[in-house]
């Protein structure tokens, strides 16, 4: 019998933004960096990522009562910040932070009184732990950053639970419920990323010949990619498109409202997914966890790993392996449970094997 006591309460994991603002000098330096960096031919997203990490560096400096220019004049302080951040950071954030510091010194070194960027980097390298005495290509320095995730993992969802989430979370027939159902269906039954769902435009949707389901065109790694929308999602998407006022090819598929053509924000979409999870009684799932459940759904439908990769739109099959890893563990557990003798109180074990 299911115990209502142990039904999950809605776990609100909304992070509270406690980041303090950076001072005026830091803002000036960041503005300078933002202006100079694109001239090297990098994308806007990269610049923003580096600026964000530089901001974190400046915040760490503020916490230690140093000015931004001081940390670049003194490699000892910078190495301490890179090695011992005050909060937990991921390995990729740590690496980006180091790269951002390197690039900042190379571009704006003169503004923080570091005339010789190469000398600065060499002295910084000497103060950071080295990875080992390997060959030239794998040498490098170690900075703080954990490879694992910090957020606790949610349970894996089965295909039936995925369907339940889409069908039961927003059962109404009003505009908002239909839209939310469609949003959820795209999260649960396509390989689209949340950002792609939010910015989805009508012109990106294609319909091939009849038996083939709808296709959606997205750009990934600078290349156009056509992803398949399977029937489970297509039905809800079609209902939503039929329900909303006609929009041109440049109109967003998920506008904020009937009269507001602006797209939904990523945060609003994330909150919708969270609300759906709490309504159904599962912990607040992330888009990646839903994609992982979808990959398992495809696999359970008989698709090969390469076919799953093509439906999800991932380049490497190893990504599919990673998505499926926890589901495969469950499959293995179920197989063992099938053959393991059940121990009961009333007699000998019941051997199934």
């Amino acid at each position: 019998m299911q115990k209502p006591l142990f039904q999950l309460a809605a776990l609100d994991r909304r992070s509270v933004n406690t980041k303090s603002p950076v001072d005026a000098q830091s803002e000036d330096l960041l503005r300078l960096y933002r202006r100079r960096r694109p001239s090297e031919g990098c994308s806007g997203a990269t610049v923003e990522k580096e600026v964000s990490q530089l901001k974190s560096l400046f915040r760490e400096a503020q916490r230690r009562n140093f000015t931004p220019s001081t940390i670049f004049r003194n490699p000892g302080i910078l190495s301490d910040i890179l090695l011992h951040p005050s909060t937990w950071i991921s390995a990729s954030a740590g690496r980006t932070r180091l790269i951002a510091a390197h690039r900042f010194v190379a571009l704006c070194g003169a503004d923080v009184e570091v005339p010789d960027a190469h000398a600065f980097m060499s002295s910084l390298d000497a103060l950071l732990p080295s990875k080992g005495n390997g060959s030239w290509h794998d040498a490098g320095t170690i900075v703080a950053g954990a490879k694992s995730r910090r957020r606790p993992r949610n349970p894996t969802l089965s295909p039936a639970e995925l369907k339940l989430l889409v069908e039961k979370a927003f059962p109404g027939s009003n505009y908002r419920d239909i839209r939310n159902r469609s949003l959820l269906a795209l999260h649960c039954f396509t390989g689209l990323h949340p950002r792609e769902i939010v910015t989805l435009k009508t012109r990106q949707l294609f319909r091939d010949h009849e038996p083939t389901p709808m296709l959606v065109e997205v750009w990934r790694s600078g290349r156009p990619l056509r992803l398949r929308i399977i029937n489970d999602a297509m039905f809800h998407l079609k209902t939503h498109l039929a329900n909303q006022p006609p929009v041109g090819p440049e109109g967003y598929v998920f506008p904020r409202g009937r009269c507001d053509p602006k797209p939904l924000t990523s945060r609003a979409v994330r909150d919708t997914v969270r609300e759906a999870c709490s309504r159904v009684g599962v912990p607040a799932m992330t888009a990646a966890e839903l994609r992982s459940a979808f990959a398992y759904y495809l696999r359970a439908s008989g698709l090969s790993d390469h076919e799953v990769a093509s439906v999800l739109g991932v380049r490497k099959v190893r990504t599919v392996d990673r998505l499926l890893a926890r589901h495969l563990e469950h499959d293995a557990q179920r197989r063992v449970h099938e053959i393991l003798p059940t121990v009961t109180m009333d007699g000998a074990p019941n051997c199934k094997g």
Partner: protein
Amino acid sequence: MARRQATANRRPSAELENYRRRLVATGAAKKTVQAYVYQLHSLAETAASPEGFMALFLHPEALGQALVDDRSSEGRQLSKWTLDQRRSAVQSFARLMSPELRRLTGREPLGIVTVALRRSALRVGGRFILTGGAPRRRGGPAPSPDDVAAIIREAARALTFKGRRNEAFFTILYESGSRVNALREASCADLVVLPMGTARLMLHAKGRCQPREIELTPHARRLLFAYIDEFNERAWLHGTLEQLIGGESTTLWRSTWIAQWSYPNVRQTFQKACLAAGTRAYRLHAFRRAFASEAAAILPRYTVALAGGWQGLERMDDHYIRPQVRSIAEKMAAASSQANREPPDKCRSLSFSWRP
């Protein structure tokens, strides 16, 4: 374990504290941090360098001898496993503290460790072999399903909520193949019931930062909820406000209304159950061996490793799987009866059809 805890609680030197901070910042698991710091502490004690632990890197020979010295401070022989872990700890220390060590020694610290190990190792051909350390014992016996059933039955005879607790705990331990402390330390928040009725437990996975998710069988789930119900009911009757409530970070397995079921208490309960059941005096970890042995008798080893949370096959093969005589006998009997059923004409026709 207690010794390790005591060493970990000791006030560390400045360099070890610095190392610990770096290890944590690079995302090492909690137990890895504990183990490495413990090994470095004990190495410092073994070497007893008056200039401090880092000064060992100035004398590669002394470092090498300390690394292969398999006598503990109490005079016991250490295992190869302990020496391996100590070596890994020193290598990790050399890597993470390389700026300070480089300044002290003027050389690459990892290179110093390599030189130190080579000087105290035995050269065989082009390679080096480290001697020292007692070979690791390959686990104990695995209980048969009958023994497991008898032990659980006896453990379930305890009074109050403890009977149900013991039954649920040991059943989950056997059916999931999980480690005792991983299961014992589970909190109510680690138990998740999904809308389709399946129950999952998120348990600590050794050597990993992320928990291992196990799915409970319907039988285990029933037992677990029976324990939770009985605990809550008795707690209420007893007049305490303590309850086991899903999503709360309170401990799941209790020995009193408030206290967590301790490891010595679990061991004692298990030993008493073995005695009462008239089985061999198994150790608690034997249930994990029973899980591996029973499953590997029928399923591919890779599947068993996935199900039990082993990261590779080697450890499971060498230390956990114990082929059961009963299983071998059954299979041999089945094979011989199948061979007896083979039509003799078929064999004859095959042998006569051959022409040189």
